[in-house]
């Protein structure tokens, strides 16, 4: 959680400084939900998420340096600068990414679960989404079919109040939403998204049910995101009261205090941890800064499968005569 928090704070600064571009959706305030949910997964399980992807990648264990390099748009990034924060992917950690289109990842998650089941593997697929995505039809379509086909999918809705975008009544878990999905034959649970322990426990339960009973499970995780005006001005803002109100519920502070209270952690350890995290992040920033920009030609890599017949196409007029790449092999050769 410390890692996600400091990373986001630093990323916000670097965004302001122009080192990071595009939309940067911070997850400050969602750390407990994100860490709790992802910790409920085993290594063999699959994870998908929204445009708020860099935090999820970190939670899933991706190297901070390669995540930061991606935000910098450099070759050292997990996706070599193609994805940015919204589309981060780390297949080694079975993190299928970062999806820019609201809700677009839900059917893909169901499909991943179908593949696991079809191949006889007891993997679970988890998709994390915002409350906004539940307003899109793919939400019900995907859950409905997952229920019908007994697919082990866990959807975790981070109901974030505060910040960008249509909030619905995001504040609390929705009883209506629960009725809707139960009508689809989906098991629905709720956790306290500001409490990492509770979130982890409930999501672990959801994962167990999905894995053993082969059915989709929905977890609602209400959270309070730090007041952020928009993804184009991601550094925490909002008036004094808002910030105070949020600070009072800051999941890191709460968890940290609790660890100290119950004597699991000395405040000294806590300080040390923070320093370690700070160091990791500075290493990430310097790695990202040193990583080279991609070459313009790299744009044409990974558009089509290497060696596939499609590659022959590249030989012919990619963008009008003046941009035509050197004529490649005749398709007849290439497609052999």
């Amino acid at each position, binding site marked *: 959680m410390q890692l996600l928090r400091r990373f986001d704070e630093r990323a916000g600064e670097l965004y302001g400084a122009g080192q990071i571009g595009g939309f940067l959706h911070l997850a400050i305030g969602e750390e407990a939900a994100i860490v709790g949910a992802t910790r409920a997964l085993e290594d063999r399980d*699959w994870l998908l998420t929204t445009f708020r992807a860099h935090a999820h990648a970190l939670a899933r264990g991706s190297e901070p340096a390669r995540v930061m390099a991606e935000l910098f748009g450099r070759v050292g*990034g*997990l*996706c*070599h*600068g*193609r*994805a940015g924060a919204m*589309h981060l*992917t*780390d*297949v080694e950690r079975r993190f*299928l*990414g970062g*999806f*820019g*289109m609201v809700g*677009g990842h*839900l*059917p*893909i998650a*169901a*499909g*991943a*679960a*179908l*593949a*696991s089941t*079809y*191949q006889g593997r007891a993997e679970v*697929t988890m998709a994390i989404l915002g409350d906004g995505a539940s307003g899109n*039809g*793919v939400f019900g*379509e*995907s859950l*409905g*079919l997952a229920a019908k*086909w007994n697919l082990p999918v866990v959807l975790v809705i981070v109901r974030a109040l505060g910040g960008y975008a249509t909030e619905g009544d995001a504040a609390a878990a929705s009883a209506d939403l629960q009725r809707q999905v139960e009508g689809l034959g989906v098991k629905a649970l709720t956790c306290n998204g500001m409490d990492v322990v509770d979130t982890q426990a409930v999501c672990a339960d959801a994962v167990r049910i999905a894995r053993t009973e082969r059915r989709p499970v929905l977890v609602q995780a209400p959270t309070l995101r730090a007041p952020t005006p928009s993804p184009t001005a991601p550094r925490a803002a909002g008036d004094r009261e808002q910030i105070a109100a949020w600070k009072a519920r800051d999941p890191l502070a709460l968890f940290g205090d609790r660890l100290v209270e119950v004597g699991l952690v000395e405040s000294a350890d806590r300080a040390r941890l923070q320093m370690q995290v700070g160091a990791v992040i500075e290493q990430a920033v310097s790695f990202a800064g040193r990583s080279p920009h991609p070459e313009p030609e790299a744009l044409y*890599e*990974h*558009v*089509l*499968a290497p060696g*596939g*017949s*499609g*590659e*022959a*196409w590249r030989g*012919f*007029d990619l963008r*009008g*005569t003046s941009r*035509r790449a050197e004529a490649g092999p*005749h*398709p*007849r050769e*290439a*497609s*052999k």
Partner: protein
Amino acid sequence: MSRTLTYREALNDALREELDRDQRVLLLGEDIGAFDGAFRVTKGLLADYGEERVRDTPSAPGTIVGMGVGAAIVGLRPVVELMTITAALRALDQIAVSAAQARFQSGGQLSVPLVLRAPQGGGHQLGPTHSHSLEAMLLAIPGLLVATPSTPADAKGLLKSAIRSDDPVFVIEHESLYGTKGEIPEGEHLVPFGEAVVRRPGRDLTILGISRGALTALDAADVLEREHGVSAEVVDPRTLRPLDLPTILESVKRTNRLLIVEEGWPQGGVGATIAALVLEQAFDFLDGPVLRVAGAEAPVGYSRVLERAAQASSREVAQAALTALGR
């Protein structure tokens, strides 16, 4: 050795052979099981391969395609049938973004060996919502391969190649070709992508026909030969991405004239694209403008008359050819 099959049977054959060959292949689609598919392409497959591999889905195109993408990413080779190409308009974000961009966005980490199949075009008065020809919209999408078989042999060979491709492929079938018959080579029959075929050699002009347009072009070529002593060469590109531009250019450089026949809308069409490519790369060989006979700039009407008026007829193609030849 060869057998005579309908376009529909040839597709069914291809699916069976690939289902037999590769356990990773499974089929998803509305009514493809109990109902054998709206156009009976998946006839008998549920009975022979079971409901694990032949899955009936609800009418939710975006979700069906998206599930295909997810299943492909995690190791399967799904073949998704959409009942009509118009349904693809509801799934276009999953097609153009999830399927066609996953490899790119992930920097090559993800691969989406997904096949989408749907019938397009008119012929049986299915009216304005079931007669679209959308190959141009699909051709526009980088990362998506597009096949437009016009014969049973190509239908089989291209579908089999599509299922083995590591890139997502949209196989565009033609609603009015399902019943047409043709010779299919015995045994393993694969048609490579990016390989056009000269369906009929000729000297005076080249007629390029897309999807059913290739057959319209052949009929027109007969008329031109019989009634006007014109020798037309007919080329069928068979796949639009990759496009076998060299074969098209070879032909145009010989005949110096090009006419393109398509059923889709003219603006932003495949014909316009190929005209522009040929113009850019063979301008000095052209004795006249590249002409197009495309579908009408209008929806396809239900009435037989209006449906015909919306499509390119062999008469019109022949007429356009004479125009191209300045006759």
